[in-house]
């Protein structure tokens, strides 16, 4: 039935939206764990304080991290060309992300298994790296996607990447990395304010307010840079066949420095998304000041969602532009998997995602309540 209701073009649009939802889901759930990791050396001075911070995410980071795994799987299934190109192209950057993310699960689980100061300090560093490095690199990846990445396809559609790791670490990309880092630090601080008690929550509020302001300023600055054409832009110049075959070699794309603003020009109401990307972090900053932790956390979530959505909306219908062979860029209408796979995966998502959200909500409800030095000391070695 869905087969007849949803044509190929519509399914591609839906999967473009779902790609955004997955990235946002990852950033608002696993994002706060990474933010807590990045904040760990700054908000917690004593071992008990560190355990308070770690145990606010202790029971949930594992589930949150599945958003990352699912993101990888869903990109593989729905956008195989993007999966093939981005992870092989950003090879060493991806390795750094994996390296950092491998340290995280072990850091959470193993830190409390021994009492030695050196042992715990080493795992604190692992958790810091596991939080801060991916947060930075994900932003760097987005910064590169906005500028275009040097790649082309052979006529067998073999992806050939022409850049280097140091090419990825250019100033504009690092700027985006800072936006991402500030954003996730804000989110981690908001979570700590919501879930921790005592000095950890106080320090988190102070850091969070700064991070939220920096997020708003940097994100607005990013908008100005795009307006100035610093990031460049790519525009599809051939006729788009929304239900055409997924072959990125069948279109023409032009470099046009005002292209990333085109969608907002033609649909001005879309500007509400980037505006909220500025307003929501400001709201979070105010929330940190007023110590309204629930509101702050919601504002932080909204801010992250709007920042990520802004990037997607600017680039639409392009997903990953090629700086050296613009015609080979990946676009929503020519980089997806087949009609049947998009349909099958949509059915799976519609069935399972609500179930996942339901039991995740139940788990958070069971774990409801603040973590404080008293609860940690009472729980002894039964917590991290």
């Amino acid at each position, binding site marked *: 039935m869905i087969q007849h209701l949803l044509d190929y073009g519509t399914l591609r649009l839906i999967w473009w939206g779902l790609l955004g939802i997955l990235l946002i889901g990852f950033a608002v759930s696993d994002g706060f764990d990474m933010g807590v990791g990045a904040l760990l050396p700054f908000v917690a001075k004593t071992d008990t304080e560190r355990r308070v911070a770690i145990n606010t995410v202790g029971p949930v980071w594992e589930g949150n991290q*599945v958003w990352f795994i699912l993101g990888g799987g869903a990109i593989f299934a729905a956008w195989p060309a993007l999966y093939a190109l981005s992870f092989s192209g950003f*090879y060493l950057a991806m390795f750094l992300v994996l390296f950092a993310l491998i340290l995280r699960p072990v850091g959470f689980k193993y830190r409390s298994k021994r009492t030695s100061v050196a042992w715990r300090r080493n795992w604190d560093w692992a958790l810091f790296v596991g939080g801060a490095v991916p947060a930075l690199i994900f932003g760097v990846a987005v910064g590169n996607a906005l500028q275009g990445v040097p790649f082309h396809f052979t006529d*067998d559609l073999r992806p050939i990447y022409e850049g280097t790791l140091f090419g990825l670490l250019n100033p504009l990309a690092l700027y985006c990395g800072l936006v991402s880092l500030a954003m996730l630090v804000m989110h981690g601080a908001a979570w700590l304010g919501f879930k921790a008690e005592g000095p950890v929550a106080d320090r988190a509020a102070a850091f969070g307010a700064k991070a939220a302001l920096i997020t708003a300023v940097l994100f607005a600055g990013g908008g100005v840079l795009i307006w100035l054409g610093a990031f460049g832009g790519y525009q599809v110049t051939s006729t788009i066949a929304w239900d055409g075959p997924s072959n990125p070699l069948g279109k023409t794309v032009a470099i046009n420095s005002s292209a990333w603003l085109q969608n907002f020009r033609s649909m001005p109401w879309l500007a509400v998304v980037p505006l909220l990307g500025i307003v929501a972090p400001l709201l979070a900053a105010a929330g940190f000041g007023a110590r309204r932790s629930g509101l702050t956390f919601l504002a932080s979530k909204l801010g992250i969602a709007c920042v990520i959505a802004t990037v997607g909306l600017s680039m639409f219908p392009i997903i990953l532009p090629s700086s050296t062979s613009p015609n080979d860029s990946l676009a929503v209408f020519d980089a997806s998997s087949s009609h049947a796979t998009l349909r099958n995966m949509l059915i799976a998502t519609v069935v399972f995602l609500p179930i996942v959200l339901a039991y995740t909500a139940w788990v958070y409800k069971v774990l409801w309540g603040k973590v404080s030095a008293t609860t940690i000391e009472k729980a002894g070695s039964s917590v991290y």
Partner: protein
Amino acid sequence: MTNPLLVELSRLQFALTAMYHFLFVPLTLGLSVLVAMMETVYVMTGRTVWRDMTKFWGLLFGINFVLGVATGITMEFEFGMNWAFYSHYVGDIFGAPLAIEGLMAFFLEATFVGLFFFGWDRMSPRAHLAVTWMVALGSNLSALWILIANGWMQNPVGAVFNPDTMRMEVTDFVAVLFNPTAQAKFVHTVSAGYVCGAAFVLGVSAFYILQGRYIEFAKRSFVIAAAFGVAAASSVIVLGDESGYTITDNQKMKLAAMEAMWQTEPAPASFTAFGIPDMQAHVTHFAIEIPWVMGLIGTRSIDQQIPGIFDLVKRAEGRIANGLLAYDALEKLKKNHADAAARTAFATTRADLGYALLLKRYVDNPLQATPEQVRDAAWSTVPSVPSLFFTFRFMVLFGFALLAVFLVSLWYTMREAEAPRWLFWLALSTFPLPWLAAELGWFVAEFGRQPWIIDGVLPTFLATSELGITDLVLTIVGFTAVYGVLAVIETGLMLQAIKKGPDAVGDMGSFGEFAKARAVITPAE
């Protein structure tokens, strides 16, 4: 042509990370179910010793579990990082089970595992038991989806090559889900995981019994592990996935190579129990043959023939010839998408396109291949016979040895009399065997599929990313270093937890009752 060193390094990296990952996964599979069973007994009987068993084995489960998770992150992204052409070529089919694994299984497992550890005082015993079963269910469903993906690499059903998108696309998703190869693999692999769990609990319990510590606790664990182990090891052996080796030409080639069957024998074929396969002369020296057995286990019949290597190579030669027709038509279609004659020609020959690609190892344009190159390509479909012959035999040997250990353990624990000490030494010393068997099994499955990455569809040497050798060397060294350090740390923590014993989990809840129970039981031992 792709750089052969790049291909070999990519394969090495995948083998290292996958085999390392599979040190932790089978224990997660087995222990999750064993722990859930222990907790079920606790909830049904209310006897606290079962709760303490749940918590202690759960603690060890947790130390192992995080490394399974950490190394699994690498696996999810490695296809895109190191095997970009593969990812493009088959992502339409292969990506789906990976995504569904995350959605349906890994979310379940990972969301509830936090509650398993942190939720003891926050919910009723029944609710906690449900949480534990969700973890076990999640990890087993994970295995199902991963093996559907792997099963498709061995037997790529329900998909065809689309010349407009230059990749394989799904035509029958249900066939991919119910792929008989995937089902055989799922049952075999999950049972192997249960064997690992059982051998682990059996070994650690034997250690306590030999030390005279936690006797009551260890004896109960020993019994449940022995019983579970008998069931699991029987299942691994009886439901061995050899039955899946009769479906495709290349699976048949794998079977022939495992058994060093050079020539086709009249059915039912004999089984070569021992021999020295010779890749140059294409014979097996000093072969000791047992009549009928091969035909029976390979085909589950007495009248079906199992083709030998020579016949399969001849078949491959025919498929290369047919594949060249497909390759030729595809080249024409690349130049002109509207070429109707080429489209028709491609539609009738595309099933063999992969065989023409085998020639790319010898010549850039397969259409210009010489007859010698075609013959070489056909012979390249034979994997290394001696490696497969011996790894397969050791895997089987270990499987039967483990079944024997579980049976003897169960037999002694069912009797009234005291079990002899050698039994516990045996249980302790054989507990690495299931891991060896599992790694050997994966070697047979994956090395035996060579030269294909997707059986009959895409040769491995074409499937890599276009990476620099330095990048690959750097990441291989990096992964080896991180994984090495983590292995040492993990082993240290496991040993520490085992040495501290079940008492160490005492402050996870009220443990006093158990200490009292032990005080009563110990003098009677």
